């Protein structure tokens, strides 16, 4: 029998690998997942001035720079023991809401949409945004581009620079907005709400009214009963920018709720020999392996987890959709991985509504945007919800604010274990003896991981646009049975 070793020490190419080993009878023996991780950030940040971290860390990811910027800014508030002004907090949340509108829009139409709108068996040539727009119409396609463009304008205007804001400061932000800008933001927010409602309607028409998809969503293959993590405000409603981290069990009960500074009391990391990936888990439950359930410390941090971990949405239209989703799915918590796409659209609506609320806040154009810190810096933790999951920045500095140590837990990292488990389960359930391994089948395995939207953007924008995923299947003799590698 040919022996194949998964050696994490070999050079990691810039893409993720799913490797599936088959038994003699053609059923799945084992599945392994490797995704590239960026290395050396701790070393890279040592000796740097903490106040630069919102600029530096936003460079980590070309897709969600605003998330890192915001987490870093909040870490600085904590580091310098300074409370931001009320207006500053609102401006930060306003920018962050606009960011969420762009991000969730992009995800649905480019990533999730193709799976559902075109279907998992559609030819690869059609299973992308071009196919989606051909199906839903040019007008909606134009609205996708426009909504993103307008919300990017908000980020640029409020944040001071396109894509990479120069905005967050310990105790506040760098610029205030005027009435003209505020009025334009308000108009954009109204349009974004309509767009979000339209998108939810597309999801309803294309996904929920299609029995095949609904069955897929509710199927055991795509179900995982892990703990759920998300940031909540003081009313336990979803909040992307601020609050406490709440963890709710697969039974729906609150397991813990912690302030940023307490994160190390609750989260530990597991190391496995076959991958560079680390697997965070809930310390107080313990690591029981790659299994779900109340007794396993594996937790998820995704849009669905956020909705599961909260008691509701803070805005009315999103709250209606939240209730509709849970009533369709049979109550809380919803453990259906594919429902993450639905949750993401409810968040899209919430972000747009929140944007409108904040644009109308009487304080939003106030010039009072900064409290200057006076305390000596030592240690600070900042947590926000990145679109891909709870994002934690932790800095330890000397008395001058120069970084001695830094620790980041990025959104996707929270989901390493559940991601792996979802893929493993889908592979096991879908690849059966006698069943022909088609591209559609492999695509369904990919559908198990797409809801997590794992962040590999930095490793993937090398031309000519490689899809950073390779799925390879080996038979019991170690011969390659099938390889799906898009773009390589």
């Amino acid at each position, binding site marked *: 029998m040919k022996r194949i070793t998964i050696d994490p020490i070999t050079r990691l190419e810039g893409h993720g690998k799913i490797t599936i080993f088959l038994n003699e009878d053609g059923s799945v023996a084992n599945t392994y997942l490797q995704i590239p991780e960026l290395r050396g950030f701790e070393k890279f940040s040592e000796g740097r001035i903490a106040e630069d971290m919102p600029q530096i860390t936003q460079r980590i990811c070309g897709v969600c*720079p605003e998330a890192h910027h915001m987490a870093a800014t909040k870490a600085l508030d904590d580091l310098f023991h300074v409370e931001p002004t009320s207006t500053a907090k609102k401006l930060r949340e306003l920018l962050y809401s606009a960011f969420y509108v762009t991000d969730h829009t992009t995800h649905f139409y480019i990533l999730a949409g193709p799976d559902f709108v075109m279907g998992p068996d559609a030819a690869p040539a059609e299973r992308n945004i071009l196919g989606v727009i051909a199906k839903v119409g040019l007008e909606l*396609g134009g609205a996708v581009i426009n909504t993103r463009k307008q919300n990017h304008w908000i980020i640029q205007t409020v944040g001071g620079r396109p894509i990479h804001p120069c905005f967050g400061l310990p105790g506040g932000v760098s610029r205030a907005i005027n009435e003209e800008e505020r009025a334009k933001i308000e108009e954009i927010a109204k349009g974004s709400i309509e767009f979000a409602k339209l998108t939810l309607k597309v999801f309803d028409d294309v996904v929920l009214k299609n029995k095949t998809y609904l069955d897929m969503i509710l199927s055991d293959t795509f179900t995982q009963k892990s703990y759920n993590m998300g940031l909540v405000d003081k009313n336990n409603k979803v909040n992307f920018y601020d609050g406490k981290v709440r963890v709710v069990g697969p039974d729906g009960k609150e397991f813990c709720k912690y302030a940023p500074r307490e994160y190390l009391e609750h989260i530990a990391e597991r190391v496995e020999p076959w991958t560079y990936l680390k697997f965070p888990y809930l310390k107080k439950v313990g690591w029981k392996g790659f299994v779900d359930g109340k007794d396993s410390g594996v937790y998820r941090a995704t849009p669905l987890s956020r909705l599961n971990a909260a008691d509701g949405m803070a805005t009315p239209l999103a709250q209606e959709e939240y209730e509709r989703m849970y009533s369709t799915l049979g109550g809380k918590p919803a453990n259906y991985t594919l429902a993450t796409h639905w949750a993401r659209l409810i968040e899209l609506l919430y972000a747009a509504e929140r944007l409108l609320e904040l644009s109308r806040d009487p304080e939003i154009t106030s010039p009072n945007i900064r409290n200057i810190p006076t305390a000596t810096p030592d240690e600070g933790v900042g947590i926000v919800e990145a679109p891909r999951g709870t994002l934690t920045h932790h800095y330890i500095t000397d008395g001058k604010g120069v970084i001695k140590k830094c620790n980041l837990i990025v959104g996707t990292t929270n989901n390493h274990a559940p991601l792996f488990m979802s893929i493993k389960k889908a592979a096991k359930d879908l690849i059966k003896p006698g069943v022909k391994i088609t591209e559609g089948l492999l695509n369904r395995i990919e559908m198990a991981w797409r809801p997590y939207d794992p962040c590999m953007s930095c490793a993937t924008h090398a031309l000519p*646009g490689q899809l950073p995923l390779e799925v390879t299947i080996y038979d019991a003799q170690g011969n390659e049975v099938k390889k799906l590698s898009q773009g390589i």
Partner: protein
Amino acid sequence: MKTLVLGIGNPILSDDGAGIKVAHEAGGKLNDPQVTVAETSAAGLSLLDSIVGYDKVIIIDAIQTEKGRAGQIYRMGIEDFSLTKHFSSPHQINLATALELGKMLNLAMPQEITVFAVEAKDITSFSEKCTPEVEQAIPEVVKMVLQELDA
């Protein structure tokens, strides 16, 4: 001819900063009001936003191919990556798809697009410097970009 020279990359991820470094150097040598030099860490749809409205676009980025040698330089036209336009990436879409999308939606797309890509060795370690092989290629790519603008 309204021209855009766009360096793409991540300036803190070793060789992934190659495109940005080239654009930066090229920009320092240019003095043409018709030519805009920009740097971006965006990809996919955001790229589309950057190139709309220009007649000619020169893009510079890092690349990783199966058999390439670190520091190797490629010059590509749009026809060279039409084969990949049907595939999507986890977050974004690749350049070819972005272009196709722009055309589909009747946006003002550039008529001429040229891509210079440098084969990268390391794009997963944090560093503001490129690896030596890539560092050496940068001035060569700058020359090629300037020549392209003269053409």
